């Protein structure tokens, strides 16, 4: 068991900066998700931690040991790949045993660790089969078992669920959470799927253009995004941002008014579910364009002050496209952003 310290890691490809002095500390036993859109540098960062990719600057420490210049195998970690990378010419048993065999572990230990990992991932019935006979979900279980069998100090996972279909992904996600909680392994998990990051991680590091823009607990990242990018990337539907003017500490738009930080032009951020629907003249004036019944709720898409806004309304609401309604965001849950920098302004406790 060990924590990870990522210390000002840099990576440049030619003149392009893929990682710009990224620092992150992962505590022993913690599960951190690296979340971001494709091209944000999350996979590159993971591969630098693994030692599969060279770095242009900075250090990686695992358990207080500088591993920056060690071979992947000497870093005390295991990894699960997006396309599983389960060896097709070996039985499931030999796949899971692979890491132990390369370390010349005694046969008894190999057997014990393989059986324990197989049991944890529910793959005991397939141990003597070849991976070609398994489904994608089963192969990914084999890949996770192979990683856990070596009892790694650190487990790295690169989009492990993205090749699975939706239902399987949901099932595997829950299983993964259970397994990793039981194993208590320090985990860094790369994903572009914010629901995966929300559901699995102790903390989420949201990455954008080679930087970590926010690193916090899932609920904080969700409720108090550090930038408009985070608010828009995390959560479904994404957070809404509406330009609003603040005069003498009170921001006003249509029939909505709230105490706000700063002065002048601001962005009012609110989650689609943190609103009350009211009469058109009260609250923000929302022009409904589409109403989609989702079963548990109705998703309304429209505009406020010409900005695209999505809100969640209770099932049974009667709204038609083209109508105007009033939207009142919960003042306790709104965030204020600077329109110039896109960064959050400090909250005012009113």
């Amino acid at each position, binding site marked *: 068991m060990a924590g990870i310290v990522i210390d000002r890691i840099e990576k440049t490809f030619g003149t392009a900066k893929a990682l710009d002095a990224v620092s992150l500390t992962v505590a022993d036993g913690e599960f951190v998700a690296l979340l971001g859109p494709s091209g944000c540098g999350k996979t590159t960062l993971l591969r630098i931690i693994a030692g*599969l990719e060279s770095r242009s600057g900075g250090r990686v420490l695992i358990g207080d040991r500088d591993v920056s210049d060690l071979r992947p195998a000497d870093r005390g970690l295991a990894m699960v790949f997006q396309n599983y*990378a389960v060896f097709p010419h070996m039985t499931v048993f030999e796949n899971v045993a692979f890491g132990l065999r*390369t370390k010349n572990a005694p046969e008894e230990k190999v057997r014990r660790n393989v059986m324990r990992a197989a049991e944890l991932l529910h793959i005991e019935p397939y141990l003597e089969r070849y991976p070609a006979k398994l489904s994608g979900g089963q192969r990914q279980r084999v890949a996770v078992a192979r990683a856990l069998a070596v009892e790694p100090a650190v487990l790295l996972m690169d989009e492990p669920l993205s090749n699975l279909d939706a239902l399987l992904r949901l099932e595997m996600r829950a299983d993964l959470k259970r397994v990793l909680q039981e194993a208590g392994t320090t985990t860094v998990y790369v994903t572009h799927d914010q629901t995966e990051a929300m559901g699995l991680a102790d903390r989420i590091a949201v990455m954008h253009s080679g930087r970590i823009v926010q690193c916090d607990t899932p609920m904080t990242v969700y409720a108090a995004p550090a930038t408009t990018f985070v608010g828009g990337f995390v959560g479904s539907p994404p957070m809404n941002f509406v330009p609003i003017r603040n005069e003498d500490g009170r921001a006003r738009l249509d029939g909505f008014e709230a105490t706000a930080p700063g002065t002048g032009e601001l962005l009012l951020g609110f989650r689609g579910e943190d609103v009350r629907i009211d009469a058109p003249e009260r609250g923000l004036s929302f022009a409904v364009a589409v109403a989609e019944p989702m079963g548990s709720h109705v998703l309304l898409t429209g505009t406020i002050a010409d900005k695209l806004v999505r809100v969640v309304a209770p099932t049974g609401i009667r709204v038609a496209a083209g109508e105007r309604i009033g939207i009142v965001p919960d003042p306790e849950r709104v965030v204020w952003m600077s329109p110039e920098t896109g960064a959050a302004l400090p909250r005012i406790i009113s």
Partner: protein
Amino acid sequence: MNQRILPYLLVAPAVVFLGAFFIVPLVQTIVLSFDGGGTGNALGNYSRMVNDLNFGVSLRNTFMLVLVVVPLQLAMALAMGMMLQKIERGREMVLWIWTIPLGVSDLAAGLVWLALLQNTGYINSALFHLGLLDGPTPWLNSETPVTLFAAIVLAEVWRATAVVLIVIVAGLQTIPKEFGEAAEIFGAKPWRKFTRITLPLLKPSIQSALILRTVLAFEVFAAVYALGGRNFPVLVGEAYTWQNENQNYGVAAAYAVLIMVISLAATLVWLKALRTNPETQA
């Protein structure tokens, strides 16, 4: 057009072509080899072939060449293919240069090596001028069987390793790089990674390359003929001699059939020895 017969119509020209120019001559050759050669015995041509002075020598020479050249080429192609994997820039260029010998006909290649290696050749002159040789030294006659053999091996390796290389490189490219990375993460050192991951996954390609190369190696002739003439008899050379110099088509046909049987047997050996369980493929 009827969808059921269209595919057959489309392959028909190839089938007719192969039938007319491959299967018919093949059958004719087989029939010819059993015509007895005027002895009244169906195996007359074969007994004449086997009792010929050069038969044993050419059989031994051919097998020796195959046994030395093919493993050497496979090992070199694997090494070259693995090196290519590590090259990031200019990889296509290196591959292109390495495969240039494929564009040279085997007789031309033999003549180039003859120009280099004969006693008045470039290498002899160079070594003489450097003071390493006292005078023109023959390497390619019947008194110097070891250097002659080495020269033929050299020419064959130079000429035909690229065929194996291309099959190996194509095979290597089908192996996802994550397999190698996973092996590295889980502690496999380079040699172990090569023997435990790369080689097994490359088995189908190695099999194809070996079949292709072995069959061609048993047909070795032009380069040998250029370098050693009749000082180094090989099976195809004997067939050529019986056909053109002795004008005995029957014995030549017997040689041709023998070479075919050996090639088929070699193919069967590779098919069996390097059989891949379809379950173990990615």
